[in-house]
């Protein structure tokens, strides 16, 4: 199963890599990705609708029932926000640098103030580079929506 998923995602990513933005072919390939991930997400649709149930699901992850590993529940709860501090700092820096370069680029030029988007344009000049980015996009989707 893993091999099939890897092969299909690799083939799809290469297909995306061969397309040019602002063309119908690019629209179609990305739409195919949407549809495929919608199928994955549909199977993983969250059953809990209450905050307490969602919180229980998080604790389950922290206990080792999922991706979080084998941390005891009490220890996890005791750490609170500190458990998330490294991610909060890192994501905060991403947002700050993205916004800073985005707005600075209006007056100083985009080349001098690269955003994530303009950096990706550089990578996407080659088919392989665009394919790798497309594959990472799929991996992100899989990590987010596959249970």
């Amino acid at each position, binding site marked *: 199963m893993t091999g099939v998923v890897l092969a299909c995602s690799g083939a799809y990513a290469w297909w995306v890599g061969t397309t040019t*933005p602002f063309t119908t072919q690019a629209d179609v390939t990305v739409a195919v990705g949407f549809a495929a991930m919608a199928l994955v997400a549909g199977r993983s649709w969250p059953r809990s609708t209450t905050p307490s149930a969602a919180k229980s699901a998080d604790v389950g992850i922290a206990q080792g029932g999922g*991706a979080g*590993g084998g941390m005891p529940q009490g220890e996890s709860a005791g750490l609170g926000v500190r458990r998330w501090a490294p991610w909060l700092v890192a994501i905060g820096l991403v947002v700050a640098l993205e916004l800073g370069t985005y707005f600075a680029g209006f007056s100083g030029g985009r080349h*001098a103030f690269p955003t994530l988007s303009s950096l990706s344009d550089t990578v996407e000049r080659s088919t392989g580079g665009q394919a790798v980015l497309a594959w990472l*996009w799929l991996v992100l989707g899989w990590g*987010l*929506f596959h249970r």
Partner: protein
Amino acid sequence: MSRTALLAAWAAIGLLLVGCEVLSVVTRRRYAGALELLARLTAGPVRFVVVFLGWMWLGWHFFAR
């Protein structure tokens, strides 16, 4: 600030993100890992839909438009 310095800043942030996951692993999940973060982001139907729309926008922005 020069372009080189900004590129270095982006690289440092990339390493920091990787470091967050490494920290989680070496501390035996005392700190949250990447998959736990992703699961938390999509906990509950509303977050799930919002994050799915955000993921769609990302693909559209980078590869189609």
